[in-house]
């Protein structure tokens, strides 16, 4: 929707709950997007660069989960 149509919550409880919900949504999106990239053959350094975090951080956060899910990971170069 256009930016000017985005409502601004009047109640602080709604604003704070939106932060919580956005964090959960971002976590889910990150899990899904990294998995999608790795299944498509992206390398850890490329995924890290796209996310703006270190290779170590992305590996630490996602490697175990993707290995457990049977995703064929490219070797680090």
């Amino acid at each position: 929707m256009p930016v000017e149509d985005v409502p601004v919550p009047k109640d602080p409880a709604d604003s704070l709950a939106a932060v919580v919900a956005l964090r959960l949504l971002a976590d889910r999106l990150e899990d899904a997007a990294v998995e999608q990239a790795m299944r498509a053959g992206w390398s850890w350094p490329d995924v890290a660069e796209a996310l703006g975090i270190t290779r170590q951080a992305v590996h630490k956060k996602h490697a175990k989960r993707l290995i457990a899910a049977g995703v064929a990971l490219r070797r680090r170069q």
Partner: protein
Amino acid sequence: MSAIDHYINAIMEWGAAEAREDGSAATEAHHLLLAMAADEGTAAHRVLAAAGLGRQAIRDALDREFEHSLSAVGVSVASFDLPKPAPAPEPPKFGASARLAIERGYAAATGKKDLRPAHLLLGVLDTEIGTVPRALALAGLDRVDLMARAREALAGNSW
């Protein structure tokens, strides 16, 4: 271990499984509520069931709260169509809201010997802030009335 220790362990483990299932980094109070609704044979379960709050009904209420909270800032969860990611293999952390709920549950009882599942349900319900009260309100449920029913069950000495 006493029966209440077993119960606490069970809802923490079940709650962790719920957290992992919905992609949460931590087990939160609402995950404990889902666990309580799934664990039969307790007053906590009976109070929730009598209000129509089975595990799936709570899950639906939480999903609605999630969508409602996102819509407040103009985000539609329906616009994201990525496949469901594989769950994390390691258990999630124990989150701040779950910790508070357990502490409030202990505080609702007069000592550890008195502590029963319905006290822990009170601990999850006894807040006006956060995901649980918001989800219950959106589902049209009276949180204060649920707490009164949990207290009644406790007064009747039920487990």
